[in-house]
C-alpha cells in the first residue's frame, strides 16, 4: 500500500470515463460507467469516507445504473443505431473540453503548491459522525430532500404513464 494507489485508481477512472463517452454501444457505456463508479468508491475508501463509499456503491452502482440499463433494454437501444454527429462537431466538442481543462489547470497554477490531504480525525467520514452532523445542523435540508424525492417520484410516474386516449 503506497501513495501510488491513488494515481493508479485515478488513471483507471480517467480511462473508463473516456470509454464511457467514446463507445458506440450505449450498453457498453453503461457498463463502463459502472466500473467508473466503482473506482470512485475506491477513492472514497482511500479518503476514509466510509459512509459515502457505501452510499455511492448502493445508490449509484445499484439503483441509478439499474435504472439506466432498464431503460436501455426497455427501449431496445442495444444495437448500434445512433447516427454519429459530424466529425466537425466532434472535433469542436473535444477542443471545447480541452479548453475547459486548460483554463482550470491554468487557474490552478496560480495557487501555491498545496499541502497534502491528511486525515486529521480518523472518524470524520464514519456513519456515526456524519449522522450526528446530518441530524443536528442539516436537519431542515434533510427534510426538504425528502420532499424533493417525493416530487421526483410523482413526476416520474406522471411523465412515464401512458396518456389516456380520450384527450
Amino acid at each position, binding site marked *: 500500500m503506497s501513495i501510488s494507489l491513488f494515481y493508479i485508481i485515478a488513471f483507471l477512472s480517467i480511462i473508463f470515463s473516456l470509454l464511457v463517452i467514446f463507445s458506440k454501444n450505449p450498453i457498453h457505456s453503461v457498463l463502463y*460507467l459502472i466500473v467508473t463508479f466503482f473506482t470512485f468508491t475506491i477513492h472514497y475508501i482511500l479518503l476514509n469516507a466510509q459512509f459515502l463509499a457505501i452510499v455511492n456503491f448502493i445508490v449509484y452502482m445499484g439503483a441509478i445504473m439499474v435504472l439506466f440499463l432498464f431503460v436501455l433494454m426497455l427501449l431496445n437501444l442495444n444495437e448500434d443505431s445512433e447516427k454519429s454527429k459530424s466529425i466537425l462537431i466532434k472535433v469542436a466538442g473535444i477542443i471545447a473540453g480541452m479548453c475547459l481543462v486548460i483554463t482550470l489547470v491554468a487557474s490552478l497554477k496560480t495557487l501555491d503548491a498545496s499541502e497534502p490531504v491528511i486525515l486529521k480525525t480518523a472518524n470524520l467520514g464514519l456513519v456515526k459522525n456524519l449522522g450526528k452532523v446530518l441530524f443536528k445542523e442539516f436537519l431542515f435540508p434533510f427534510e426538504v430532500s425528502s420532499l424533493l424525492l417525493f416530487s421526483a417520484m410523482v413526476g416520474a410516474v406522471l411523465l412515464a404513464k401512458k396518456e389516456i386516449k380520450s384527450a
Partner: protein
Amino acid sequence: MDNISQVIQGVPLNHYILFSTIIFAIGVTGVLIRRNAIVIFMSVELMLNAVNLLLTAFSVYHNDAAGQVFVFFIMALAAAEVAVGLAIIVMIYRNTHSTDINTLSKLKW
C-alpha cells in the same frame, strides 16, 4: 482503518483538483459530442461524481464533515434527476421512436 488513512497522506490537494477537473471535462465533452440522450445523461452523472469526489477531498482537507453531508444531498438530487430524466426520455421515445436529441429541434432558433 489506520492503514487506509495512511495511504492518502502525501497526495497533494492539487492532484485531487486536477483529477476532478479532468473527469468533469470528460463529462462536458460527452455532452457535446454524443447525440443519444441516455449517453448525455451518463455524462451528466460523470460531472456530478467529479464534484462529489472533490467535495469529499476538501472535506477531509479542512477536517469538516459538512462537505460529506453535501455529497449525500447531491446523491439524493442525482437520484431524483435520473428518475425524472429517464421518464422524460421514455416519453420522448414513445413519441418520436428514437432518443436522438437532434429530432427535438423544434425549440431551436
